[in-house]
């Protein structure tokens, strides 16, 4: 058994790490739920109050520009419109909904040639051109036509969605042929000309105008704010410095103490210094100099590193003295999240958002995986240091105490040298006699 205070510290550290992971896992799962839901079939419901609904009739007149559908496409289109008409009839029978659609965020360019149907296709996202007509798509569409009919009458006739394809394909079992098949083709049909059209014309899914306006106003305000930040007026800057000085002189406090935030920042810097120095020392010590010049340089480097280590130690002792003045106690509300104020302030806080551009799923996954790996390594290194500080003294102190020491040894080896992944075996070598 480990001594009580050691146990407490170790358990606290590990539990802290576990909690941090759990928190991150929770965030990820929340995000996953949202993403999965978006990739399933849904429809933008028609309750946008801000945008006037488009007039389907005018849309119907619009020819599909810039591409002449092939006869095959036209035939498939016809299939689809028949299917839609039928669906609408079924719908009308059930809900008596003769209202016009009110999904202003939808722009229908595709299935517009269907006369009489006030159905406009829900947004088909671009980029699925000629793709892989998945057979699950029509299923979803069909299912949707019946189910929501019980619901709100002003619902749009949902059609298949491209974005559900891969999502559904990945999750739902692919249904067999049969009924689906005849709808497979027509559903695939509008994709080709449509995607092409979309690429040229822009978007089918559109953000509501009110939102667009608010978002652009918001971003322009942020931009104004950052430009104002960098060109802080001379008056204000001078006034602030003066005020700070005035307060300092008018106050009873002696020279400004090192604030806790500064202590922490300094400690962090020194920690970083320590790792960098240690790495460098390793490099130099393990390098084999070929000639006297290299040897000389190696020697100089080591001496230089020695001096730097000495400086860091000195700085650390000063910091420790400063910290020791004040009795640290845990704050009931919680301690400030590490590094967040200094990071937010950072080099130069730019308030307008910047982009991180990636070009493929692979790249994004690699990026995220690396980020996580670096964080995990950070955690691992911290734990390693804590474990070293706690376990090594115990092992050396409790020697020769029998089986419990061996257990400790074994555990220490596993935790310290293998990251807890593997355990060694100890055999007692009984002398034969």
């Amino acid at each position, binding site marked *: 058994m480990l001594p009580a205070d050691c146990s407490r510290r170790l358990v606290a550290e590990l539990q802290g790490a576990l909690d941090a992971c759990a928190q991150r896992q929770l965030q990820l799962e929340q995000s996953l739920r949202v993403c999965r839901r978006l990739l399933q079939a849904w429809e933008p419901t028609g309750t946008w109050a801000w945008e006037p609904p488009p007039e389907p009739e005018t849309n119907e007149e619009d020819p599909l520009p810039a591409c002449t559908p092939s006869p095959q496409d036209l035939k498939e289109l016809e299939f689809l419109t028949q299917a839609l008409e039928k669906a609408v009839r079924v719908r009308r029978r059930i809900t008596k909904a003769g209202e016009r659609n009110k999904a202003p965020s939808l722009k229908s360019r595709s299935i517009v040639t269907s006369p009489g149907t006030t159905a406009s296709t829900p947004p088909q996202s671009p980029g699925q051109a000629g793709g892989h007509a998945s057979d699950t798509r029509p299923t979803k569409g069909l299912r949707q036509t019946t189910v929501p009919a019980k619901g709100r009458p002003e619902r749009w006739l949902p059609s298949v969605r491209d974005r559900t394809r891969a999502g559904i394909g990945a999750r739902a079992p692919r249904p067999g042929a049969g009924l689906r098949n005849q709808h497979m083709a027509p559903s695939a049909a509008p994709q080709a000309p449509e995607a092409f059209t979309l690429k040229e014309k822009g978007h089918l899914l559109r953000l509501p105008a009110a939102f667009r306006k608010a978002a652009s106003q918001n971003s322009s305000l942020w931009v104004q704010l950052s430009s104002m930040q960098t060109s802080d007026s001379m008056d204000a800057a001078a006034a*602030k410095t003066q005020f700070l000085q005035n307060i300092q002189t008018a106050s009873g406090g002696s020279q400004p103490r090192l604030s806790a935030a500064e202590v922490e920042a300094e400690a962090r810097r020194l920690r970083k210094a320590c790792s960098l120095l240690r790495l460098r020392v390793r490099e130099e010590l393990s390098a084999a100099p070929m000639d006297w010049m290299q040897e000389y340089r190696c020697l100089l480097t080591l001496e230089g590193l020695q001096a730097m280590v000495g400086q860091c130690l000195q700085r650390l002792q000063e910091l420790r003295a400063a910290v020791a003045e004040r009795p640290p106690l845990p704050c009931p509300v919680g301690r400030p999240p590490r590094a967040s104020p200094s990071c937010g302030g950072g080099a130069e806080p730019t308030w307008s958002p910047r982009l991180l551009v990636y070009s493929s799923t692979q790249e994004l996954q690699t990026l995220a995986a690396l980020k996580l790996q670096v964080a995990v390594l950070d955690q691992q*290194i911290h734990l390693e240091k804590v474990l070293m500080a706690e376990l090594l003294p115990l092992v050396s102190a409790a020697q020769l105490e029998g089986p419990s020491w061996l257990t400790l040894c074994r555990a220490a080896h596993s935790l310290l040298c293998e990251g807890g992944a593997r355990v060694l075996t100890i055999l007692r070598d009984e002398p034969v006699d």
Partner: protein
Amino acid sequence: MRRRRVDPAAGARAGALPEAIAALSRSLPSGPSPEIFRRAKFDRPEATSALWQLLFRVLSPLPAGNALASIALEVQARLVKSALCSQGYPRLALAQLPEDGSQGSRELLLALSWLLARGPVPEQMLAQTRVPLGDEMTVCQCEALASLGPPAPHMEAEGPVDVRHVQWLMGKLRFRWRQLVSSQQEQCALLSKIHLYTRGCHSDQNLGHLSVTEAEMLRDPEGGQKLLRTLERESRRLEAVLAWRRAEPVFWQWMDTVLGTCTPEAPAAASQPTFLPWVPECGDGELELVVRELQTLEEELREAVERRRVAWEAKARGCGRGPEWSATRRASRETVEKELGALQRCWEQDSGPAPAHGPHRLVRREDGAAGDRDLRAAELIRTLRSQEACLEAVLRQLQGQCRQELARLAGALPGLIWILPPGR
């Protein structure tokens, strides 16, 4: 000496001050009315509690929420005092204020102004509660796993635990890491799909596709309405901040007068904080670890350097002398100095690559083209890979050290065979 060049025009504008203060209070979350500020100048007691609460909001590291609102005024006041002390606030009078909110509004006003003078407080608070419209990824490691908030009050191990419990916890942690990896891979895949499928939908050509938030808004109009309202509220706050920045000089003039009405404090005999500063509890423990590491390193270096210096001196004596010899030596010295200087800069500069701070909005582009202020994933990947390699080296080295140490300790005990686990 409180003389300062004042822009006469700025002060002469009547009504500029109330405007400035009004803008300030609009730019802060739940900012008190300008009337409170005015009363505080005259140290009226009724302004006190509002100012305590405002200071608490500003200084509290936690995001606003119900938890904050329910904290009692005394506790808030105490925490404000701690926080100000940790930041090095010089005025002692604040520390001595009663915590029930009965007096001291002028001191609180001074404290608020001190904070406002030191940093862009309204902007920072706004940035904290900013509504992200895109799919954000932070680039710096500031939100890395290890630095999450304080450990929740746990059932800490009451007494001694078996080391196997520690091993078990470690195993649990490793499992959680693996879980995180797989969840994250999935999330990235889904995110990428959504971006791909909504390509061309966005009104902002620069972005090109919708983010999950935006798509979600189309799916769920109620949520969308909420988002819109939050966005508009944020825009109002932004306008207030801009107005405040423009009207600032007038405010500082006024604050000078407020400071003038206070009697200067006598310097304290000893700067003894009378309350507990809001110091992170890690303070001493962490420093301990680093000190120990550095001391070990120092020992090692001392030995190695002595040895090598002696060896080299001996060798050098044998070689010839000459001007080029000393020239070469000088050149070597300079090179080494430069290298070590670069090394030192690595940690002295707080942040690494300067623009890589804060959250970035993820944007998918087939060609991966990026503006000059934007980041590209490929570059970030390179940086992260080198960071990863660095950290792995550190970890391996630490593990090697442990291996040596344990081997030494175990070797002292004869009659045992240690079978190491098969290498990876």
